[in-house]
Each structure stands twice: as structure tokens, then as C-alpha cells.
């Protein structure tokens, strides 16, 4: 019995010994050097070891059969090798290659992997310290490459595209009216406080399939999370006052901002304001509630409202009078994010509206639009080298178009007008998917497809692709190509329907982008060069009278250069230089009395050269000084070469020359600013700031003023001459 037991134990013992395999080997980098302190494991078990100081390892395992041995080392790609474990000793030589994640932050996420002027590094502090931007996010973005100095307003004219071709999103919800003080010269300021956004992402082209209904650019903002401490701010300046309250509430928190703009004091100090019958006034505010819903989830509810009005004295050859504008816009959204089963989920429901009432001579426009939308996205990593992103967009829009529009752009009160009262409804559904893969060590490719269907204007399927090749740790080559579609505004559709109820209607507008660039990101230095070519087709044009059509075409090509050193929050000296070259053509309307025809010409926003130099310095920790110099080629303008006397009144209809065939004089402007921070005890600070715009008092041309019969003309200059602005911000933090 004892012998039997002994035999059994010995057999069991030998079986146990034979089930052990000793795994030994080395871990090396791709240069052949052995790597000390790498981790080696049998995948799916806890059997493993670290390499020693010479890069060698050894351990025993009871795992048997075909197994994977994996080695890991920080900053290198893991390596796996299949081995057969059957006792005895197995030797494995593992080689780890350089990780693509070490080649630059732009590779890490698909979001950052967009061609174009990626200004995600534009912090709120950057915005408020950029001179000439008047603490406006849009004005600050205009100092980056790819944006043209097409006007002195806030409009984002991107690479030969019209301002309407850039979508502005907050937490994924489109903002219908991102600008204040809309006039014939465009909006003067943005409606979004730079402090409301924790992240700003702007792309001037080649952007991801996740963004639809935009031909040229995307400005995507992510709202702040809940405040971590109570804080109150009060800002009073020459042009307005604002109050902000941050209040932690339980696990979440509330951020409230109210702003009242009144420009009379600013104009009085600067001896200006004659051009206004009523100085611009605005009332706007935001309320943001945010709270974590789990360790990975968050819910946000945001409301934005803006109301503004002004009366601007304008002189038109047929009429001199006051352009009056009242506008109201609002946005409400709820955004939810979380991680479920490895998927990053993001969903936003929103409702936005905009109402405008504009009057000038015989012109009266009362357009209104509202939009309810749902946007949902999901993304997941399928392996170390494969990511998938997908999402849907659904929305319902309603646009009303009411008012009187004169023929031939002549606003004389006696001119013939057409009365409109039209409402159009439309729905839109979009879906997209994108795959990001790393087929080789230094290569990342993104391929995406987007489909959109608009009930009023048609459907489109848009493929997009990007390719990145990392030359070394700091330098990347980028290529991007894609097709982009955008529906004409529902207001234009409404106007077209009103004019021609049985007409062909309007289709989708399309653009293609081809972009090649190089990016270098070294210590405290960013250099970027990008060349691009865009073509447009089916652009909306006013084909005759007040009839519209999507028969316009166009193209744009150019080169953007950008250099940035330092950062405002960390370096005593920082700044950037951007230069953009642009050559663009578009189908334009060429007036010939009451008639008109379509002709190709340079668009009014097709400024050939734009240079921005922004410098910031902090001579002491409390004092910040900054300067911005802008020089740009003059805007293209269409000369009026003759006129026809109107039979119905004492005014003339103009006859245009070749569209965009003349160029205004060069635009130059120097702005400076400074701010000084004064601590107030333990819980507050006072920031005093001042700015001087157009310090050289340059009379920049913005167009031509023609005589009533169009026989003589003189340069019309910008009202933005030398001006000063001062203010103070009080910040109180509660404990």
C-alpha cells in the first residue's frame, strides 16, 4: 500500500514538474540594444517577469500549449510572439519598435488629425490677451492662417469660402447665429464668451466625416465642466458690463454669465459714433449646468441667448438713411457623455432659433429660422492600431422669410419691391463612419464616409481620407482629401420657393478639398506649412431678378504658413506669425441695370495676402503687454462702369464691370493692449486692462462710395480708426 502511494505521488510529482515550462529570453529595441526593466508576460495569465539590467528575463509557467508571450516597455510598441509550452525551456527574443504615440500628439486622436489651421491650443487667456480682438473668440481666431481679412468684423472667411460655409458648434449643436450686430458688412462680434468653452477646435479644411453641412471650415467648441469652487466676476468697461457666477451644487455646478453691451461711452471717449443713429446695444447671457453622472459620465444643460440692436447711417447711391437692425437668437442644449462597454458615447439634443428685423430704405427683411436637432456619436478602439468612430445627425428646421425686397439692389423708397411671406420646412438626416488605422509604424490613415439627406435640397455621399507620415518625433507630413456638402440656407430656399413655386428648387452645394502640409512641433515651437486646392460646384447664386439657382462654381488655391513660439500661460514672451496666400474665383452676379448675368470673378472675400503678427510679453508676473500687426492685400471689388436711369423714379440702376476686377488699397492695422493684475487679499483679484486699436490711425478702405448717377466715386474708409478701450475685472473666489 505504501509503495503504491509512493508511486502515485512520484507520478503526480513528475507530471507537475513536466507541466512547468521555463521561459527565458531577451527584450531589445529595434536598434538591437537590449532593454532593461521591460515587462514580459504570458498573455491571459499572471505568469511573467521583468527583464534585468541587461535586458534578460526568465520565469516558469504552468501554462501549456500554444501561448502568446508579450513584452511591454514605456514608449515602445508591445511585441507578441507565439510559443509552444510543453515543459523544458522555451527561449524567446522579443523586439519592441518605436511607438507611433511618441511621434506627436497629433497622432493620438482622430480629432486632432485634421489638416488645416488647428487652433485647439487657443486658450481663453490667449483670446482675451490678443489685441484688436476685443476679447472676442472669433476675432482672435482670425489671426490664424487660412482666415482672410475680408472685413473688420468677426466673420470667419476660410480659404476662399464665404462666412456661411463655416459651421459653428457648441457641444455638437449648431449655433444658428454666432455673430452679433449683423449688418451688410457682416457680424461685428461673436456671441460666445471665450470663458464658456474649455476646448476650441478650428479646422480650415480637410476635416473629419463627423462634420457635415459645411463647405469650408468647422469651429467646434466644448463647454466647460462644472466649477470646482464658487467664484464671482464683475467686468466693467467702456463698452459694456458683465457678471459671472460659478456655483458648485452638490456633485455638479452652475455657471451663469450675463452681459450688457452699450457702446455710447466708448464712442464718446473716442469722438466717434456719428455713423450710428442708435449706438449698438446687446444683452446676452448663458447658463450652464454640469454634473457627473458616473465615474466616466457627465450631463450638461446649456442655454445661450442674445439680443442686439443698432441703427447705422448708410449711404447708397439711390438712398441715404439709417440701416436698422434688431436681432434675437437662442440656443438650448443637453449633452451627455459616458463610456459604456468600451464605447465612448456622446449625445446632444438641442433647439436653436434666430429672428432678425432689418430695415433700410425700401428694403425690409424679417427672416426667422429655428432648428431642433439630435446628434449622437460613438467611438471605440478595436485594437492597438484600429479605431472606429461613427455617428448620426438628425434635425428639423423651419425658416420664414417675410419682408419687401427691391429689384436691382436699389433701395430707393420709390424702387419696385416684391413682398414676401413664405415659410419653408425641412428635415435632415446624416450618418457617418470613420476608421483610423496605423498600417505601418510611422503611418496613420483615416478613411471616412458621410451621407446626408435634406428633404428640401437633396442627398449626398461624401468620402473623406487623411494620411499622416511621421518623419521623426517632431515632424509630420499630412495629406487630406474629401468632398463636402452643404445645404443652401432654408431662408434662401424659402425666398426661391416664393419667387418660383414651380421652379426647379435648390440642390446641395459641394466642395472638394485637397491638402498637403508639413507640421513641426518642437520644444516651445510650432511650424506649419500647408498648400491646398478647393473646387466648388452647385453654389447658390442669384441667377436673375430674385430667382436663385445652384449653378455657381468656383475654385480656390493657396498656401498657409504659421509659426508659434511659447504660450501665454507659461512663457514670458510668446506669440505667432501667420501668413496666407489665396487665389480664388467664384460665379458672381454682374448687374446690368435691372437685369443681371452670371460671370466668374474674384469674390469680395478673396484677399490675396494676409499677414498677422501677434506678440505677448509678461515683463512682471502681474503685467501682460501685447501687440498685433496686420497687413493684407486690399479686398477685390467690382467696379461700376455705367448706370441706367430708372423710369420709375429719380435714381439709377448700376452696370457692373468684371466682378472682383479691382483691388482696394492695402489694409494695415496695429493694435496694442496691456493688463495688470492686483491681488485683493486671499480671495480676490482686480485686473485692470486697456487697449488701443488701430494705433497708427490708418484710414483703411472698405469699398467705394458712388455718386447717385454712378459717374464719380470715392474711397469709403473704415470707421474703425484709432480708439482706446479701458476696463476692469473683479474676481472673487469663495472658499
Amino acid at each position, binding site marked *: 500500500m*505504501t509503495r503504491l*502511494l*509512493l508511486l502515485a*505521488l*512520484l507520478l*503526480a*510529482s513528475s507530471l*507537475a*514538474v513536466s507541466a*512547468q515550462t521555463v521561459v527565458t529570453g531577451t527584450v531589445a529595441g529595434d536598434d538591437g540594444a537590449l532593454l*532593461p*526593466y*521591460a*515587462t*514580459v*508576460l504570458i498573455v491571459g*495569465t*499572471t*505568469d*511573467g*517577469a*521583468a*527583464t*534585468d*539590467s541587461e535586458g534578460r528575463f526568465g520565469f*516558469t*509557467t*504552468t501554462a501549456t500549449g500554444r501561448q502568446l508571450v508579450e513584452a*511591454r516597455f*514605456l*514608449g515602445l510598441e508591445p511585441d507578441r510572439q507565439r510559443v509552444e509550452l510543453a515543459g523544458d525551456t522555451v527561449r524567446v527574443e522579443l523586439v519592441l519598435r518605436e511607438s507611433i504615440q*511618441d511621434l506627436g500628439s497629433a497622432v493620438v486622436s482622430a480629432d486632432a488629425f485634421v489638416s488645416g489651421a488647428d487652433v485647439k*491650443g487657443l*486658450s481663453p487667456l490667449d483670446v482675451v490677451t490678443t489685441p484688436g480682438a476685443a476679447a472676442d473668440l472669433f476675432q482672435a481666431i482670425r489671426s490664424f492662417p487660412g482666415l482672410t481679412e475680408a472685413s473688420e468684423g468677426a466673420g470667419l472667411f476660410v480659404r476662399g469660402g464665404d462666412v456661411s460655409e463655416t459651421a459653428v458648434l457648441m457641444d455638437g449643436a449648431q449655433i444658428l447665429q454666432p455673430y452679433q450686430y449683423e449688418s451688410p458688412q457682416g457680424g461685428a462680434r461673436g456671441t460666445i464668451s471665450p470663458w464658456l468653452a*474649455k*476646448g476650441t477646435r478650428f479646422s480650415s479644411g480637410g476635416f473629419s466625416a463627423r462634420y457635415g453641412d459645411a463647405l469650408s471650415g468647422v469651429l467646434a467648441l466644448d463647454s*466647460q*465642466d462644472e466649477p*470646482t*469652487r464658487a*467664484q464671482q466676476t464683475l467686468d466693467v468697461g467702456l463698452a459694456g458690463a458683465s457678471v459671472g457666477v460659478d456655483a458648485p451644487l452638490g456633485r455638479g455646478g452652475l455657471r451663469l454669465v450675463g452681459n450688457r453691451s452699450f457702446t455710447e461711452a466708448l464712442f464718446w471717449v473716442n469722438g466717434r459714433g456719428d455713423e450710428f443713429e442708435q449706438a449698438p446695444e446687446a444683452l446676452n447671457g448663458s447658463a450652464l449646468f454640469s454634473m*457627473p453622472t458616473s*465615474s*466616466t459620465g457627465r450631463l450638461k444643460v446649456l442655454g445661450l441667448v442674445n439680443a442686439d440692436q443698432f441703427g447705422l447711417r448708410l449711404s447708397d447711391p439711390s438712398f441715404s438713411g439709417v440701416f436698422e437692425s434688431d436681432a434675437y437668437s437662442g440656443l438650448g442644449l443637453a449633452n451627455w457623455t459616458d*463610456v459604456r462597454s468600451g464605447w465612448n458615447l456622446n449625445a446632444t439634443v438641442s433647439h436653436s432659433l434666430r429672428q432678425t428685423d432689418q430695415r433700410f430704405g425700401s428694403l425690409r427683411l424679417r427672416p426667422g429660422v429655428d432648428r431642433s436637432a439630435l446628434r449622437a456619436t460613438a467611438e471605440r478602439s478595436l485594437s492597438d492600431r484600429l479605431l472606429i468612430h461613427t455617428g448620426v445627425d438628425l434635425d428639423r428646421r423651419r425658416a420664414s422669410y417675410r419682408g419687401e425686397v427691391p429689384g436691382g439692389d436699389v433701395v430707393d423708397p420709390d424702387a419696385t419691391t416684391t413682398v414676401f411671406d413664405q415659410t419653408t420646412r425641412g428635415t435632415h438626416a446624416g450618418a457617418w463612419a470613420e476608421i483610423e488605422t496605423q498600417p505601418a509604424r510611422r503611418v496613420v490613415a483615416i478613411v471616412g464616409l458621410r451621407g446626408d439627406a435634406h428633404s428640401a435640397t437633396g442627398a449626398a455621399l461624401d468620402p473623406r481620407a487623411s494620411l499622416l507620415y511621421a518623419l521623426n518625433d517632431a515632424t509630420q507630413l499630412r495629406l487630406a482629401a474629401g468632398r463636402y456638402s452643404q445645404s443652401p440656407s432654408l431662408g434662401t430656399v424659402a425666398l426661391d420657393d416664393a419667387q418660383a413655386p414651380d421652379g426647379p428648387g435648390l440642390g446641395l452645394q459641394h466642395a472638394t478639398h485637397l491638402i498637403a502640409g508639413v507640421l513641426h512641433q518642437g*520644444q516651445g515651437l510650432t511650424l506649419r506649412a500647408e498648400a491646398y486646392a478647393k473646387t466648388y460646384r452647385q453654389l447658390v447664386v442669384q441667377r436673375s431678378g430674385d430667382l436663385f439657382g445652384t449653378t455657381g462654381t468656383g475654385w480656390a488655391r493657396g498656401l498657409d504658413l504659421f509659426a508659434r513660439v511659447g*504660450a501665454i*500661460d*507659461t512663457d514670458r514672451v510668446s506669440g505667432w506669425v501667420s501668413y496666407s496666400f489665396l487665389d480664388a474665383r467664384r460665379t458672381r452676379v454682374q448687374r446690368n441695370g435691372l437685369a443681371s448675368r452670371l460671370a466668374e470673378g474674384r469674390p469680395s472675400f478673396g484677399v490675396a495676402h494676409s499677414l498677422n503678427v501677434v506678440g505677448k510679453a509678461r515683463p512682471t508676473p502681474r503685467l501682460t503687454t501685447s501687440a498685433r500687426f496686420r497687413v493684407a492685400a486690399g479686398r477685390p471689388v467690382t467696379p461700376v462702369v455705367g448706370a441706367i436711369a430708372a423710369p420709375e423714379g429719380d435714381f439709377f440702376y448700376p452696370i457692373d464691370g468684371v466682378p472682383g476686377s479691382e483691388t482696394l488699397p492695402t489694409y494695415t492695422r496695429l493694435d496694442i493692449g496691456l493688463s495688470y*493684475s492686483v*491681488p485683493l487679499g*486671499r*480671495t*480676490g*483679484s482686480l*485686473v485692470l486692462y486697456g487697449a488701443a486699436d488701430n494705433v497708427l490711425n490708418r484710414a483703411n478702405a472698405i469699398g467705394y462710395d458712388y455718386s447717385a448717377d454712378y459717374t464719380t466715386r470715392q474711397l469709403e474708409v473704415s470707421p474703425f480708426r484709432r480708439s482706446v478701450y479701458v476696463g476692469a475685472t473683479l*474676481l472673487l*473666489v469663495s*472658499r
Partner: protein
Amino acid sequence: MRFLLLVLALGLAVPAQAQSTPPQPAALASARHMLDAGVATNNPDSLLAARAQLAVLANADDASGHWATYYAALADYRLAYLFWSRDADRAGQHAASGASALEALRQEGSLPDPLPEESAALLSALYSTQMGLDASLGMTLGQKASMVTREASRLAPANPRVQYVQAMSLASTPAEWGGDPEQALELFRSSVEAFEAETPSGMAPRWGEDEAYAWLGMTLLQRGELAEAREAIEASEAINPTSEFVQYKLKPWLASVEADAQ
């Protein structure tokens, strides 16, 4: 005969136990010892070796695996500081790796006590390290750091490391962004008292006391309270005589200020 049976049975049982059960706390203790030795000697090799050992142990699907993940992240935190002035890119990699490992750990849910608050405090310190190395990360990590610090404070307001991390944040943030040197000083003081009263056991961490004293000393030095500053700096040195921060920054600074004062 019985002796032979016993030897055989043990010979059978020991290898089977060593291979089939998760890594034992002894292995974790050994890796932690290596980590402490690396900190005490400012030896990157020792820290890297500890980190690699802990990364192996972190694969265990139990409390010891969770703690190994925490200590591997602590090794990353130590390595980030060691490489800070020598190789900023490498320092950033370690800080990001540690933060990423703790973020993943904290998503697992049921963590053994006191890992929830300890991991929150260490994660906050790792975020701050990343922002210190690259200020442009402030936009994305600043809020995360605040939230995780607040969570740590809510879970364990008296924890010395939680108070220390909170105080560091208040001391290094400008007043207009919520920094408060006065409250930081109070928390540093409270933190060193809590460290002295702490009696860690088992797998619970016990790092940070010398650093809290060093920060307390630096804060007092900035305020010109020299006697108390000297006391705090000496207390830090007594716990960790090899700290480069104390030896090469704080002590020369103290000496210079004291010389000026005389």
C-alpha cells in the same frame, strides 16, 4: 517513511501553489521595497525595475493586482520627477502612463479601501505633473485634476496624502485661478500632523511625508518665517536625506535667506 511522504507532498504543493495562484503580497512587498529604495537613493534603475515588477503583478485580478497598479503608477510619478530636468519627454511619458493606468483602475469600480481616495490623490498629483511639464495640457487636465482632488477630499478629508496634494494645488495655482497660499499653508501643516499620526498597514501606501515637510518648509520660507521653515526642512531631511529638492534647492535657499536676514 512519513517524512518522505511529507517532503514529496510539499514538493508537489509548492510549485503548484507558486504557479496557479495570483502573486502574493510578498512579491508586492518586495517590489514596493525596491520602489522605496529607488526613491531613497534617487536611483532610476531601481525605480524602473520596481515599475516593471509591479506591472507584472498588476495583472493579478484581485486586490493585490489593484494595489500593484497603484504602486506602478507611483513609480511613474517618482520617475517623472527624477527625469523632470534631465529628459522632459521621458518624464511626460511616465506621468501620462501613470495617469492612464489609474484612470483605467478607477473605472473598475469595486476597489479595496483605501484605494479609492489614495488613487484619486495620486492621480491628481500625476495630472499636476503633466501640466507642470506641458502647460498646454492645462485646458484638458486642469478641470480633471480639480475634480479628482475634490473627490479625494470628499472621500478622505483627513488623509495626509489627500491634504498634501490639495495643498500643492492651492500653493502652485495663481490666486485669480483659485490658488490660495494661506489655505495651502494650513493644509501642509495639517498634512504633516496627519502623516505623523498615520500607521499604515498591509498594502496601504505610506509615501509623501518628507515631501509635505519640504513643501511646508518652502511655503514658510516664501513667507519669511525662517525658524519654522528650518524646522520643517530639517524634518524632511531626517525622513529622506537624499532628496534632491531639499539638498539642492531648499537648503541653499534657506541658507541664503538666513544670511541676508543677519
